[in-house]
Every structure is written in structure tokens, then in C-alpha cells.
């Protein structure tokens, strides 16, 4: 079922406060059986860039906790996805 992620939020605890983050994108991977979420709190890093947080979500684990991504293959996949988004947006 498709659903609209535009109005969805992700809560993030930062500096002791709960922050609602906008979801920028999601995608799945049948290879890892995980979903991936890109979200942002619109903060700007010291290098002037906007921070996009990317986390994974394993639907088979209890709890609805986002996990960090450390696997290189997953990171590579994220890069590809972002490039796709970029290409599609500018096509």
C-alpha cells in the first residue's frame, strides 16, 4: 500500500530534546529485508550543508527503533538511491 510520507514525522532525541524530523525519502531492500528512511531536522552543519540523517528500520525486530547504518553495501545502496532521486528530479 502506498502511503504518503510527506506528512510523516520521525522523532529524534537531540541534545536532550525530542525533535520532529521531516521525512525526505524512504525505500526498502529485499536483500537486507529492511526499510531505509532519510530525514532531516533542517539543521546546517558547520560546512554549510544541510544534514540528512539516514537510518534503517528492521520490521522483523520488536520495537520501532531506527538503527544506524554501518554496512558498506548498505551505504553504497543509499548513495545509489540518492543519485536516482537526483536524476529523476532533474530529468
Amino acid at each position, binding site marked *: 500500500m502506498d502511503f504518503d510520507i510527506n506528512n510523516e514525522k*520521525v522523532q529524534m532525541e*537531540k541534545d536532550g530534546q525530542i525533535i520532529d524530523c521531516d521525512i*525526505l525519502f524512504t525505500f526498502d531492500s529485499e536483500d537486507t529485508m529492511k*526499510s531505509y528512511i532519510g530525514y532531516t531536522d533542517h539543521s546546517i552543519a558547520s560546512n554549510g550543508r544541510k544534514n540528512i540523517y539516514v537510518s534503517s528500520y528492521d520490521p522483523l525486530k520488536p520495537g520501532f527503533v531506527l538503527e544506524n547504518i554501518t554496512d558498506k553495501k548498505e551505504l*553504497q545502496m543509499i548513495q545509489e538511491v540518492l543519485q536516482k532521486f537526483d536524476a529523476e528530479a*532533474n530529468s
Partner: protein
Amino acid sequence: MSNEEKVYLIEGPHSTLSKEEVKQSLKQAFDEIKILRKKIDSEKDFAAREAIITELTAKIEDLDTRVSQFNAQEDSVDEVHEEISQVDQQILDLQKELKTMSQEYEASYQKMQAIIDEQQRQLDSINGLFSDEDLQNIREEYAEKKLSENAKSVSIKSRIDSQQKHLAALKRRKNKMKRDVEASHEAGISVADVNEIQNVLKKKTVVDAIMNQKGLGKVVSKKASERTAEEKKAVREAKKEIESEVRAAKKEHKKEDILSLVEALYSLQVQYRKGRSPRILIIPDRQLDTIRVRVHNMPEKIIHIDEASADYVPGDIPADMQEVMESREPKVKKKFLMVKSNKGLCYVTSEAIDEFDLSVSDEAIFVDGNPFYQIRLEDAEKLLADSDDYEFEQRTVELDEQKENENDEVVDDTNHDVVEQVTVYQDSESNDYYVPKYALSRFHLKPKSEEVIIQGRACTRISDVDYDYILSHQDNGYSPYQVRTDTVDIEKNNSEEKTVVEPETPKKKEVILLYKGLNDENGTYASEEVLSRFGFDALGDVVPIEGNHCHAIDSVTEDGIQAAAKAVDIEVKYQHVLIEKKSNDPIVLTLYKDVNDNGQVYANIMDLVRLGFSIDGEVTTVEEIACHKINSVSEKEFIFRAEQSKDPIYSVDYRNVYLNKNNHFSGIQRVEVPIYHDLNDNNQPYATVELLTQLGLPINETVVIEGVECSSVSREDLNRIRDFVEQSTDPLQSIAYHDVMVTKKVEEITVTIYRDTNDNNQLYARRELLEQFGITPVGEITIIEGIDCYPVDATMNQSILDQVVTCRNPKYLLYYRDMALDHVEKLEAETIDIKLYHDIDHSQVYVPKEVLEQFGIKFEGNIFIIDGHDCCQISMDKHQQLLDKVNSSENPKYAIQYMPTDDLAIKEVHPKPHVETIINHITEGLEIKGKDVAYYRSSNLRPAKMFVNDLKSGNWIYNIVHVCPAVGKLTVGFATKLSGKLLLSETGKASMQEIERRLREELTDEEWEVLFDEYKGSVLKTDMNNQINDLILVGLKEYAYRKVENLNQGIKDSYLKLFAVVGSLREIEIELGRDDLAPEEEEKYFEIRKMLLSDGACYAKNILEYRKEANNLLSSGIHGIEEDFKAVSTKLSYVGMRFAKTNDFNNELQAKLAKYGQGLNDAIAKDDPEGIISNFIELESCYFQHTDIERDALGKRSIGFKYYSPLAEEFDYRNDPFISDCFFTGVVATTGVQVFHALKVNDQNNQILQELQQHTKSNQGTAFYGMRQQAHQDLLSASQIMENNGIVKHDFSSTYSQIQEITTRYASGAINQSQALNEMALVAEKTQATLVDVAKEALKTVTDTNAKESLQFIVSNPEAVVHLNNGFMDTLEYANGMAELSSLPSDIHTSLLGALGTATFAAQVASRMESKYGKKQGYGNEVTEGLEEMLKEGVPSFEEKAKKM
């Protein structure tokens, strides 16, 4: 009189007297003596006086004896009592120490307990959640503390054990000493005597000999195990009798030693006297030479037997004795020439001087070229007297002036006081010394060169040593002389030299001598001459032997000399000598004490000379050594001078001798008794068999020595021989020692004594060994390595050691072997039956696995469970192997019993599978993605509009942060939607479903058991994909739930049995309360009561145990720690019991619970069945009575202080009735949605519904009930309808199928309630919609439903619409409210706000719950029913009965 009092026994009419009484009696005796003495003074009559004196003497002797006994006993008893006191003190000290250590041990235990409690408190008191790492740290910290404390505790315990053993040993020792004191009192002898008697009577030879006399010889020759009971009794009694006889004898003859008494009593000859240690008399070579010289000077045979005159001077022939020269050659007179000068002086040749040992002057004349020496005139007269052996030819010469002048130097020979002159010539060039030839024999010197003429005298060179000797002995007391040393130029003129004839050297074959040191372990020595002759180096120190400079040689050199000598036809002979060692060892000077003469002391004449004493008085031969009697003053002087001497150093030694006073120079012939020393066997002595037979000494293996049959003798026997010889008078005998070589191979025998490390190193030895060493085996038999062994005490051990040390052939090698003995070994063989199972039909024997292991037979193949034993099939070979081992067993003795398997079930058990095998089974052939692919593929890409816009604009560049500073959380709804497609993707679904299917359908319980063991609350394998872990987890939980269910069944059974016991106990109490109850009946009831109490206590303990195990499985084995802490944070705690959540804490209740809880633990510890049952029931009742369940609009909830659940509950809130009721509301919501969907409303319908909505809001209760009844039917209908309408179509179908599976299994009983709930919650987690969302969603699409069908429903159930509507609204509100409940753990949130499907499922489950927990306001079970029933009559108490008993 007690044993502790000192009892003094005095011979005579008195039996036992106290110390004071003894003193009194002695005083009395002394007074009597005083009276008698006075009587003597006053008595005038001689006869009467004599009588009084006799009486007085007797009394004095008696008093003397008694005083001596008194003193001896006082010492003896005092010593023992002192020793007992010391041991007592040691025991007390040790007991104190043990007490301290026990306290330390107890403190350590308490400390351990405190650590455990502290850990538990820390875990219990947590308010927040601990991470796994923190928890691990806590556990590690406390584990370390526990380990450390445990180590201390173990160490203390080990010390306690050791000290207890020591204490036991001390007590044994004390008891023995007390027994000895008691025995000494009874027997009237000292404690030392008692011990000595015991020691003597331990010797086998003694006991056997005595037993022989008592007619028990054959009995004692048997092994103890072979003796009958009567025989054993007879031996025991005989031993007691012997002991008492010997004690009585000792009492009578206090001065005799025990062994002598035994010999006397039983006419034995078992005396073993400790031999005197052999003394090595070191005789310096010079002394030996001097003695030889003296011997040489002494007449060969004395034919006149008489008392020697008191003024006899050694060296001179007594005037009254005739000298007889025994000629060894045929009676041919020797001819000599005597020359008389014109001045009347007589001269003879050197041969004559040698022959007759004449004193000469240094005056010499040459007659016909031959030297003649002046002799004393009186000697000349003697020589000229008639003789059968020689004759002197006389010649007269006229001396010239020169020679006469030379003759003026001749000393006047007629003067007996003129000292002999000996001239020694020293070569001015070489500094060698030369002496006249006669001096060689005079001083027994060895010539070092051929004859050399010096100043007209035939001289030969002597060694420096000999020169020193001559010089040092000139002032000897019996043959003094003066040495004059002249330095000359010696012309070695060949024409004047004459061949030196060595009188002692045989002319036929040259002989060289090698020396064997008698006091040097037969070390071999060779002279420097011999060594240089044969080309060997003279190594080491110079050792003077017989005037030669010798050196020690090794066997190689010795062999070389022998070979070289043989090559040149020279004979090698050995001479045994005493080596004068140049060591710092003092020279031993022996003083002889004549025991037969009141210890009169004799000193060796040579020693007296050494120490500068004058030699006078009678010479006495003592052990073939010429000695003088010395008085006490001289004795002291002797010792003093010996001590003062620094070079050489002397030591004085005493030796007891038994002298025959007629034993000196009387010419009495002695009979020699040969004793042979085997040089090859450390001088093992041998005596002739004849002698040994004569003396009745044991004869060992005989050998022929010098043509005489001989046997080896022990040192003790040798001393007996010596004593015998010394005491012999007719004929007089002396021992002649001969060195021989009796070649024998020394046999080495290893003997083993066992040392028990488990019993304070108690020693044990085999009977044969003890008998071999002459020790009677006594004491309890201990079997070591299948052989009877006897304890060995310190005395026996020492005896064995002594004998081992002194034994020669065989040589015993003693070996102590440490064993850790088990002391429960019995002498009698134990019989053990072994059961084997025989399947007659299939000719197959099954053997229990432990039996095969016991007999070391390898088993293979599958395990079969027969009669509760793990058994194996065995082949015929292995069966025979087993039979052989069983038949050959002795102690224990095994016997096989074959059990037919007809009535026994044989269950084959396969070997447990390995976890890897199981995982492989699950995943085989499946494509488990996630780890193996080269790259990951993405799907379902969903960019947000905002993001797309940003990308389009190109305004932003981004940092991709993939390791976030804080982990984000998703809402449930979003999460489920997010992964919806993923989970439903074909690939993932296929693999996961297949795995699930395999887990569900193909894994056996045994395989689940293996996985469960591996799992234990954590992730199964970290290198596996998460998917697989989670799936396995599901199955593991299912498996665990099954186990819990079994345990719950066990709890239920135990409860029911406990209730029955309580009922029976109540009845018995009633019976026991009857007044008319007969004593036998009362006794019978008490018996039954006791049994029931024991059974009841057992059931109570079972309940506690099962409940704890099951709840542990639920709480930590299944859910993991995280869940536990969540539960704790919600105040759900106490395994087995659940608390109410929000009530105030009830202190009074808690105090009661504490009392009963502690009472229960105490009763279990003390194994008090009454206490266990009482406290258990009190506790359970408390919980039960304070558990209140109330029903309200939101469902049933627990409102009491406790939530009591007798059975093991899911350690989770999800089982809470409150929560389960929430599922009811889910049902309502679902149904509501269904209905509204079913209503394909048009505007009109909508309006109707809205109106209905407003009117029926208050009637909510009915809706619940209604829907409940229709739950099942509606579920199916609703799902169908919903599906038709596309509402959450995809989500629901998956969820629905899962729910349906759960439902089906639960309905069929394949899973239990708690399991079903849990699975349902999981499904809720997995599915994609929250209750609120779904409800909202459903409402949105309400218009999409099929109105027609819905209307039909509504028409049929008009009220339902209203109710449903209301219910729906309530549910919605409730669901909203639920979403905001923050006091509940998040999982409740999750569980409750499950998907639509979850809710519908919950309805079904909830209906089951209701049926199961129908009692006690909707909750409870048959257990609570039983409890309720029981408590109707009040809580049973056993206190009254206890008082009565």
C-alpha cells in the same frame, strides 16, 4: 581411685598406695632401721648382734630397692601424666582453633549470602531500565565477589578438615596413653614397661614361638581371614594371657629386660641384642711396625707356664723363662765366626748380628776383607755356649792402634745402662739416608738400594720416612737407642757393592704387592715404584704403607698393572692393610673397661707411649692388644693429654671387655674361631656352620670358605659369637678374622609401604612384608589394590627401616607410596547385581549405558530407554566381554540378572542433534539474503515532495549522516506502513514463510530443546541473519510455553494433591481429638499423619519449585531481560505472583507475607513438614484473599493488593485481564467497522446512522456483549467484507492469515492461552495498522461498503445498529485514550494498538480467556477453586496438634 591419680606400686604386701602412703611406708621402714641400729649398739651378745645386723642389712637393701622403685615410678608416671597434660592442652588449643575456624567459615557463608542479597536488592531497586551492558557489569562485579568469597570459604573448610584429622589423632594418642597408664597401674609396672612389652609382643617371631607353646602355632600360621571365629577368639585370649604373664614377670623382676623375661617364661631363644657398633681401630703404620718388631723380638714359644713376675719389662725375656728357638729348617747347625781381638773384644759378622739380634757398637773391624762388629761380651759368652742350632768359630786377631782407637768409642757393653747407638749416614750430595744393614731388621726397614760400604760398614739406603721413624722412636721406654747422623760422601763403588739379598722375597718368581685398605672400603694402593715401573702416574696423596710411598689407584690402573706384570711373568699379590689416613679425623685411643673387674681400665701400651706415659706394671692382653692397667688418676691424665694433643688429634673411646685375669703372656694356647669377612659384600661376616650349630644360631644359605662350610651371620649374631668367645675358658678361644671374597650377587628386592594421604599419612603394609621383617600384623585390615594390608605404626616403621638399612643380600629398597584410600572398604566381598534387559523374541540384549562405562566397554549406536535406564544394544562379543569381567570380579562381586523386556517399553532415543544441523535444516535450499550478495538492491523508492523540490532547485547540498547522534523512533503506524510492502514481497515472504513453516512443522521437540539450550534469552547466533533469529525466537517461545504448560500441570496436580492431604489431615485431627481413642489407634493415626505431612510438604515444595522454574522460563528464558525490566518498572514483580499496579502499598499485608514467607523457608531448611504445609498455605491464602478482580466499563481489572495466579503466568502484562479486555474493545471496533462498511449507505442510510448514533450513545454495554457473542461469525464476515472493500486489503490479508493460524491452533489446543496471546501480540507488532488508524481509516471509507448486505443485518438486528454505533464511538474514544496512556509500557501500547486483525483475533482469544478464567469474578482456575474450597473452613493450622504431640 581414678586413673588420673598417681598410684605408686611397691613390691610386697602392699597393692596400690597413694604417694603419701608410700612415703609414709618408706619413712616407717627408715625408722625401723634406725631402731635396729640403736639396738646393735646396745646389744652385747655377739650372736644377737649378728642377727640384728643381718636383719638390718636386709631392711636397708629392701628400703634401697623400694626407694629406687619409688623414684623410678614417680618419674615414669610423672612423665606420662605430663605428656597426657600436654596432649590435653594441644587438644584444647586445637578445639579452640577449630571453633574459630568454624566461626570464620560461618562468617564467610554469611558474607556470601549478603553478597547475593545485595545483588538481588540492587537488581530489584532499579527504577529505570538498565542496558544489557550495565547489567552484565553488575553481574560480573558480583560474580567476582562471590568467587573470591567462595575461595576463602573453601580454604577455611580445607583447614578445618585437616585440623579435625589432627584432633582425632591427638585424641587417639591421649586415649592410648591413658590406656597405658591404666595398664601400668593394673600390672604394677611402669608405663615404659607396658610399652616395651607391647613392642616386644608385636614381634612375630616372639609371638609365634609363644603361640606354638600354647598350642596355637597352626592357628597363627594361617591368614587372619582364614581363621574361624573360635580360633580368632583363642588367639586374642592367648595374647591377653601372654601380656599379663609378661607384665607379672616384669613386676617380679624389675631389673630384667622384657625379652629376657619372655625367653625365661617361655624357654625361648629369641634374644636379639643390639650389637655393638663395630669399632675401627686405626693403628698407625709405625705402631703396627713396632708391634711387629716386638713380636719378632718375643720368643716363639714359652714352655714354662707360671705367673709372670711383677717386674717384667717388655722386650726382655724373663729370667725364669727358657727361650726355645724353633727351627724351620732341617737340623743343620749354622756356622758363624767370632773374632776376638787381642784386647778381649769380640766381633761378629752382620749375619750373626741379624741372626741373634745383637746389640752392636759402631766399631767395626775388617778381617779378611769382611766387616766384623763389636758385640757385648756377655752376648759373646752366650753365643759361644753350646747350641743345637748353631756354632761359632773363634778367631783371634790383633788390632792395630788405629782400629783400637776407633774401638775406644765403643760403649762399655757390660753396663746395662748404656744406650744403643745407631749411626745413620747422610749422603752429602743427595741427602739420602743410609743405615747399617743390621738396622734393617732391627727397625724392620726396607732397603731402598743395594749394599753400599760406608766407613767399612755394609749399609743400605732407607727412605726419609724410615729415617724419621728411627729418629722419633729413639726414646721409647722399652728399647731406647740413640741416633747419630753423619754426613758422608758416599762412593758408590761397584767393586764394594754387594748384592742385597731380600730375605723376604722369593727367588723364584718376582712378586709385586698391591695393597687393599681394610679401612678404606678395599681401596687399592700401589707403591710409587710399582707405578713407575709399569708406567703409571702416581696420582693423589702419598699414603705410607709398610714404609712405601703409595698412591690410591683405580680399577683401570689396577688391571693395567696386573696385565703388565703378567706379561713379564711377575706375580701380583694383594695385601690387606690398614691405611693411615691423612685426614682431620682424630685418632681413636681406646680405653678398655673390664666388666668383670669393677670397670678396671686398661690402656693400649702404644697409646700410653704416644701420650708420654711411662710403661710399667703388668701387661695385660686385651683383645690381642698389649695393655697396661691404669688407675683413675692416670685415666684422667690420659684423657687430658689426648684432648690437649693438637697434632695428631686424639679422641678417647671406652670399650667394655670381659677379661680373664690369666690371659697375658702366659703362653696358654688359644683356639681360633674363624670369622670371615666378605670383601665383596661390605664385609658381611661368615661363621662356620659348626660354630653356629654349637651356639644355636640361625644358619642361612651355606657357602664353602677355605674348605669349611660357612654361613652368613647377622651383626647381632656376630656379637653373640664374640661374647661367647670372650667368655670361653676351656679351651680359651679367640676370633681370627679373615678377609675373603665370596662372590654373590646382591639381590635387590623392592618393598612398598602404602601411605594413606586421606588419614594423616597412616602407613599400611602387606602381611607378607611385615612377616618378612619379623613384625606381627595386627590391627584392622585395609584392602589396598585388592590385597590385605595392616596398619604400620611408627615403631614398626622404624624396625623396617633399620633392617632395610642394614640388610646386605638381599638388599631391600623401601618405597613409600602415597595413596588416597577410601576407608569404607570392607573385608567381606560386596555383591552387586547388574540388570541386563533381554528381548527374547529378537535375541537382543540391552545393557544400561552406565554398566558398559563401568566395565570399560565401548558402546555405540542409539540409546534405548528401558525401565528408565539409558541402554544400548550389544553384540555377542561385547556381551561375552561383559560376562568375563563380571565372572572375574571378586570384591565387589558382580552378578548379572537378565530382565525380560516383554512388559517393558523400549523407546529408542536418537542422539541429540547439533545446533548447526538444526540451523542447516531450517535454512537449507533457501535463499537467505542480506549477507551474501555483492550489493544490495533497493525497491519501493519514495521521495518526499519537499525533498524532490529541493533536489530540483539545486539549492541544497547535503551531509549524509548515517551514524546518527540519537536514535530516532517511528510511530507504529508509520513503521508498519513503511515496511508493509517489504514484508509482503514475494522473495522475502517466500523465504521467511518457508523458514517459519519448517520451524513450525518439521522441527521436533528434541531439536527445539537443543535450540532452547543454545538460546537462553539471547540471540541464538550472532552471525546469522536477523530474520532467522527472530523466526527461531518465535518457535523457541512456543517451545518454552509448552514447557511452562507442563509445569503448570505439575503445579495443578500438586495443588490438588495438597488439598487432598489437608483434607485428610483435618479428618485425622478430628479423630485424634476423640477421648475414647484407643492407644493403638492413636498410634496408627499418628503414623498416618506423619506420612501425610511428609507428602504434603513434598507437594508444597514441588509447587514452589515448578512455579519458579516456569516463571523463570517465562520471564527470562523467553522474553529476555528487557522485558523483565519493563515489567519491573510497572511494579510487576515476584516470580509467580503479580502485583497490582497502582494501589498503595499494604504494610500490614506485607508483614504477614514476610512472616509466612520466612516461615516457609525456615521450615524447608529444617525439613519440617508441618511448618512447610502451614506456612505455604498461609502464604498462598494471603495472596489469594487479597486478590480482587473488578469489572468495569473498560473491562476487568485487578484492584486488590495482589494479583494472585497460582499457575505460572506469562511474566508479562499482556496476560493482564485489563489488557485482555482491551481486545474486546478491539472486537467492538472491528465489528463496528464491519457493520458500517457493510452498510452501503446512501445519503439516507447515513442520516439514519447518524440519528441512531445520537440516540444510542448511552447503551454501550450491550454492544460489547452482543459483539462478543457474534465474535466469531462476525470476524469471518467482517474480514470478508473488509477485504471486498479494499480496506487495508493487503495488510489485513497477511495479518488475517496469521491470526487465523493462531486461532486455529489455539482452538485445537495446539497452543495454550498465554502462547496465543503472545503470538497475537507479535502479529500486532508485525502488522501495519494501529487500532486508531484502522478505525479512522475504516470510518473514512465507510461509504464504500456494501449497503445491501449491511442493511439486511441491521434489519435483522435493529438494536445492534445502535449498540454498534455507540460501541464503535466508545471504542474509538477508548482507542484514542489508549494511545495516550503513558503509564503503560510501550509494548502494551503496541500490543493494544494493534491492527484490525489483531483486534478481531483478540475477540476470539478473549472469549477463550473468559471460559478459562470464569471463576472468581471472571478469573481463576481449578486451583483457585480448590483454594477457595479449602479456605471455606479457614486456613488449616497444625499448632494445636503440635502442642498435643
